[in-house]
C-alpha cells in the first residue's frame, strides 16, 4: 500500500501517512477554505489502511492552527482510526501535541478525546 506524503503550505498541513511503519502524522496549519477537498483522500486512504493495519498505529497530530471546517474533517480522520482500533488487529494511539501556553489547542484535543473511544495522549511542547 502506498504512503501519502504532502508538503505543508500556509493553509494546509504537512501529511505523512506511512502504511508500512503505521506512523501517521498531521503537522502545521490546517485552515483551507475547502477542507473536505484536502481531507477526502486522507480519509479514503485510512479506509484502505484499516484492512492491512497491524501492530501499533502511532498517530501524531501537531497543529499550530486549525479552522472549524477542518475540525470536522479531523474528526473524520479520528473516526477512521477508531474503526481500525475496533477491528482489534492494531492498537491505535493518538498523540495530540500543543504548545505549553496554548490552552485552546489542549482543549480542542480534549474535545476530541471526549467524543472518541481511542486513547489520547496530550503532549506538551516546551518552548
Amino acid at each position, binding site marked *: 500500500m502506498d504512503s501519502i506524503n504532502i508538503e505543508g503550505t*500556509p*493553509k494546509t498541513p504537512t501529511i505523512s501517512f506511512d502504511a508500512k511503519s503505521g506512523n501517521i502524522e498531521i503537522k502545521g496549519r490546517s*485552515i483551507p*477554505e*475547502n477542507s*473536505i477537498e484536502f481531507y477526502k483522500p486522507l480519509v479514503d486512504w485510512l479506509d484502505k489502511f484499516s484492512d492491512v493495519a497491524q501492530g501499533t498505529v502511532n498517530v501524531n497530530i501537531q497543529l*499550530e*492552527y486549525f*479552522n*472549524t*471546517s477542518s*475540525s*470536522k474533517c479531523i*474528526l473524520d480522520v479520528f473516526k477512521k482510526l477508531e474503526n481500525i482500533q475496533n477491528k482489534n488487529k492494531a492498537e491505535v494511539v493518538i498523540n495530540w501535541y500543543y*504548545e505549553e*501556553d*496554548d490552552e*485552546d489547542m489542549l*482543549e480542542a484535543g480534549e*474535545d476530541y478525546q*471526549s*467524543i472518541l473511544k481511542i486513547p489520547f495522549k496530550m503532549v506538551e511542547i516546551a518552548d
Partner: protein
Amino acid sequence: MEANIHSLYQKVSKGNLVISHEGAIDSDLISTFLAKVEDSLLQDGENAKRVRKIYNILVEALQNLYHHQEIPPKAFLDSMQIPGLGQYVFFVMTKENSGNYRVTCGNFVLKSKVKVLRDRMEQLNSLSQEELKELYKIILNNDEFSEKGGGGLGFIDMARKSGNKFGYEFINFDDKFNFFIFEVLVS
C-alpha cells in the same frame, strides 16, 4: 441606502486600524490578510498566545465572509465604483486604546435567512463558556456540512475564543436583502 453601507464601513474603519477591506473576498486575499495581521501583531510585541487567539478568530471571521458572499443588486455594485466588482463584503480590524482588538464584518444576507441568523446570535450570546463547549461538541459530531461548505461551527468557535458577547445588527437594504454587521471583541 447604498451610500449608507459605504459610510458605515468608513465609520467602523476609524481609529487605530490594523486592516480594512471592502469589496469581494477570495482565498488569496484571505491568505494575504492573515499573513499581514500576524506580522503586524508580532511586530507590535503581542505575545504568542494572544496572536494565536486573534489569528484563530480572524480565520473564522474571514472564511465566514468568504462562504457567505451574496451578489447584491447591480446598482449597488456600480455605486461602489470598483471595476469588475461582483460581490461585496467588508472587513475591519482595529486596535482600541484599551489594547483590545475589534473585528467588524459586514455582508448581505437574504431576508429569508435573517431569522435563523438572528436566533443563532441571540442563542450564542446567551450561553456560558461551558454551554458553548457542549454545543460545539454536539455540532462537531453531527455529520452535516452546510450547503456553503461551512461546518456551522465558526460562530461558536469565535464565541469560545473571544469570551465576549457578539455585537450584531441587521440593516434593512431592499426587498431581498438585509445587511448584516457582526462584531467580535478580543480582549
